[in-house]
């Protein structure tokens, strides 16, 4: 690795200079300037600093408790998501389990949905009138029907809802493990458990660290699961942030809370980066071979693993089945939980799909999300490469600046863009950006930067540096090396990242509500208009229909991008002997802390 290159030497490469200039402009114009503006407007309302926000928050029992709950959830999730995530990855990719392909499809259901409907889906099953609860109460009449609520319920639901990263990226890293090391250990008499603990898991560390950061972030930003299942005792801070963001006189409280969560995230990031440093996480053998599935040799353990795997399969798939089923029921049935086969009709779909606006919002959202996903990944390919190659203070500063969108809620980011670009501004060549179609695209790209950067950087880190050195020795130029050696190696990961970005932007409301062009309105606004109405009867039914429609779009995307690259990856004859390891981490749902695992449901609904 070319670690510790001094900052001065960076200036000698024209490639670095060009990327540096573009990046500096972008960061200054779209990350720093708008957010500084909005923070100044928030904390210095009349030109004087006001420390009122901290005072108010510290003296509020509720705020402190909710903040504590958010942190508790973040820490707990970091543990539980890893436990469940590693288990399902091993079951589908490492051990020889009967029906592992079907299991994979079940576990992969979290790729395509999340948010309030997912929480509702779990409630249909385990809530006080849920299917499983009703059965249990029949068997154990003394049982409390409200057992599935509070911290425990929220943790369970969010754990199962956020294993997406493990299924995508930990699984990917697992495939890159050199089987020869496993075989060697076997020959030396190591048990299955020892091999797992001493060889397999250590190789997955960088990915696990990165995934842990994202689980932590998801926990901090938890919104819908606590709202649906948290009950009186377990509410988190995000709903409060959203309420205060919407109230001009309390916006400083929202900004302060968001900054606290943002700083915690960045600290977590720093700790994980430190832990990760200094290890060697790729195979150093000259000829590595592909991983083969392992038998669980102990028969009792084998039965136990199969049982748990299929139990988890049921846990993962039941909510999806019920959501699809309930999307055909009327809103009253959904809310009261009384479902009769005769009450299932296509009415909900007819109503949603025959609206005047028709398919237009879907098209608008698909185009915006695709553009933003491609631009973010395309642009950051260069940036991530440079940040990974040059490790000095300049690179560090850039890297942390690029994480700004993780610190503020997206509504504040949007307000910052409006107040910065509603007049001719020299930073963008004297143009006025509000009221144009480009401002929403800018916002979409910026909110996806931190996530994209994290994952791309990790995937560059997994590339064996000797290939690059060999090319350079033979006289290849920087761009040639980038294009012919590095790009093909990170492209599968980049495509998966783009797909996740695309999926998470499809139903965005928080940004679009402030920035969308009135004649080019994306899906999020239409969903909101159709699902709000003080949570009326049609509104709830429409929520389910939109969820199912989005499941279809995101499912197709994941298949097209991830499914196909996976197939290509396994059949393509790449440059020989390169471990295809791509320890990449990411999450479909983690974004800005406060929109966290849920973008479909803005907490503040006003009528």
């Amino acid at each position, binding site marked *: 690795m070319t670690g510790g290159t001094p900052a001065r030497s960076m200036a000698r490469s024209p490639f670095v200079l060009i990327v540096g200039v573009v990046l500096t402009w972008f960061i200054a114009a779209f990350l720093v300037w708008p957010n500084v503006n909005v923070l100044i407007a928030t904390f210095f309302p009349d030109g004087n600093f006001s420390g009122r926000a901290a005072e*108010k928050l510290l003296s509020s029992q509720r705020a402190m408790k909710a903040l504590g709950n958010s942190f508790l959830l973040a820490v707990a999730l970091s543990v539980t998501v890893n436990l469940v995530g590693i288990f399902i990855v091993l079951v589908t990719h490492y051990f020889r389990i009967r029906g592992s392909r079907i299991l994979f499809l079940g576990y992969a259901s979290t790729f395509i949905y999340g948010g309030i409907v997912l929480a509702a889906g779990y409630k249909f099953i385990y809530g006080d009138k849920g299917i499983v609860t009703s059965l249990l109460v029949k068997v154990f009449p003394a049982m409390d029907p409200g057992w599935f609520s509070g911290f425990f319920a929220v943790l369970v639901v969010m754990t199962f809802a956020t294993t997406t990263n493990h299924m995508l990226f930990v699984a990917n890293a697992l495939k890159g493990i050199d089987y020869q090391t496993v075989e060697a250990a076997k020959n030396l008499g190591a048990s299955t458990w020892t091999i797992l603990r001493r060889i397999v898991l250590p190789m997955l560390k960088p990915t696990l660290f990165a995934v842990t950061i994202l689980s932590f972030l998801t926990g901090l930003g938890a919104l819908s699961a606590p709202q649906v299942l948290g009950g009186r005792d377990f509410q988190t801070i995000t709903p409060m942030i*959203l309420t205060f963001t919407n109230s001009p006189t309390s916006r400083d409280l929202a900004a302060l809370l968001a900054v606290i969560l943002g700083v915690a995230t960045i600290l977590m990031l720093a700790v994980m980066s430190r832990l990760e440093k200094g290890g060697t996480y790729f195979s150093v053998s000259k000829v590595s071979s592909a991983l083969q599935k392992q038998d669980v040799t102990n028969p009792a353990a084998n039965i136990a693993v199969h049982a748990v795997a299929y139990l988890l399969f049921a846990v993962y798939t039941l909510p999806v089945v019920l959501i699809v089923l309930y999307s055909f029921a009327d809103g009253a049935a959904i*809310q009261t939980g009384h479902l009769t086969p005769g009450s299932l009709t296509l009415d909900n779909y007819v109503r949603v799909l025959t609206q005047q606006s028709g398919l237009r919002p879907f098209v608008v959202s698909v185009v915006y999300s695709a553009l933003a996903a491609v631009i973010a990944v395309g642009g950051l390919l260069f940036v991530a490469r440079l940040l990974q190659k040059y490790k000095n203070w300049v690179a560090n500063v850039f890297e942390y600046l690029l994480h700004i969108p993780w610190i503020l809620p997206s509504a504040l980011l949007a307000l910052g863009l409006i107040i910065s670009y509603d007049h001719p501004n020299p930073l963008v060549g004297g143009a006025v950006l509000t009221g144009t179609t480009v401002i929403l695209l800018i916002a979409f790209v910026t909110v996806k930067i931190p996530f994209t950067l994290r994952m791309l950087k990790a995937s560059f880190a997994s590339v064996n540096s000797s290939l690059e050195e060999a090319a350079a020795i033979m006289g290849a130029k920087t761009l040639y090396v980038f294009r012919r050696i590095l790009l093909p190696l990170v492209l599968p990961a980049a495509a998966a990242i783009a797909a996740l970005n695309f999926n998470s932007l499809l139903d965005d409301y928080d940004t679009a509500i402030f920035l969308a062009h009135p004649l080019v309105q994306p899906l999020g606004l239409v969903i*909101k208009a159709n699902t709000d109405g003080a949570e*009326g009867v049609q509104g709830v039914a429409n929520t389910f229909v939109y969820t199912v429609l989005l499941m279809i779009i995101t499912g197709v995307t994941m298949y097209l991008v991830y499914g196909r690259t996976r197939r290509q990856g396994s059949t393509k004859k790449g440059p020989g002997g390169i471990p295809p390891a791509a320890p990449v981490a990411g999450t479909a749902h983690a974004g800005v802390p406060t929109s966290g695992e849920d973008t479909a449901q803005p907490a503040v609904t006003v*009528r």
Partner: protein
Amino acid sequence: MRKLQTLVAAAVAATLLAGCGGGTATPAASGEASSSPAGGSGETLVVYTNSNGEGRGEWWTKKAAEAGFKIEIVGAGGADATNKLIAEKNNPIADVAFGLNNMYFSQVKAEDALEPYEPAWAGEVDKELGDGETYWPLVKQAILLGYNSDKVSKDAAPQDWTDLWAKDEFKARYERVTGLGTATAQLVFAGILSRYRDDAGDLGISDEGWKQVEQYFQNGSPAVAKTDLFARIASGEVDMGQMPSSIIAEREKSFGVNVETVIPSVGVPLAVEQIALVKGTEKKEQAQKFIDWFGSAKVQGEFAKQFNSMPVNKSAESEANPEVVAFFADLKQQDIDWEFVQQNMGAWVEKIELEYMT
């Protein structure tokens, strides 16, 4: 391989260019491009509203087109629409805004984002309901306390909000809000707190008033996300809670429950939806014509008929559902000092969220 890469590069470049190209289109330009000569009247009017749900937005777009106005409705929650109007005041995108209540519009007005205009129908409405200058009233909505009348008889029902926490039989039987983001919730608190106005008290409210708020939160059953109050009434979880008058009939039918409402002796708070001209619009003349059309007796009457609402325009009353008109005729309106409420609501919401919600 090389071919593939060139292709990918070209595709990326093309999308980047497309993105930039899209950016050069100003709203006016793209508005012109996509506007067909509907009814022969020029450009598309951009209309912000929080009242576009449940088919209302589409109804308005269709009716406006019939009258020769091409409009594009941008829907947003009340607080979002308010913040958006304020944030865009230097370079407004909207031409007209409607549906926001007086509390929201007075915030927008305070930020100097509204243009004074007196509509042609100004004489047909009670000026007191708007500000008589920039925003004008359209539709009345009563914010009520409703109870399950199959379960609770009229004599046994609460007489006022304060009974909910003062009398043991109602404790834990009423739904209380879990957030103060909605206009309905804010109006309920405007109604309760206004009774305890005390200039020496915290935020203009006496200690007794804040105690009521504390009791409200301590004794109520917290609302459940994505579960309507009527669904909870139907399942017997709770028996009563806050509800705006316009939704009651439809929800009763959907959930198969019967609800009666409480009229406290001080009266009930009224939310009045308004319409206003946005300051700085480039289509002022057309926007004014649109407002004249929108609030006219004929159009408001049709809307009232379609959506069971209570029009403010006196000449439109004859078109509205007679039951609704009769209900509002008997209704005692609570006397609320809206200026006082508007000045303090932000701080009240903050205090309640921080100190009283549990």
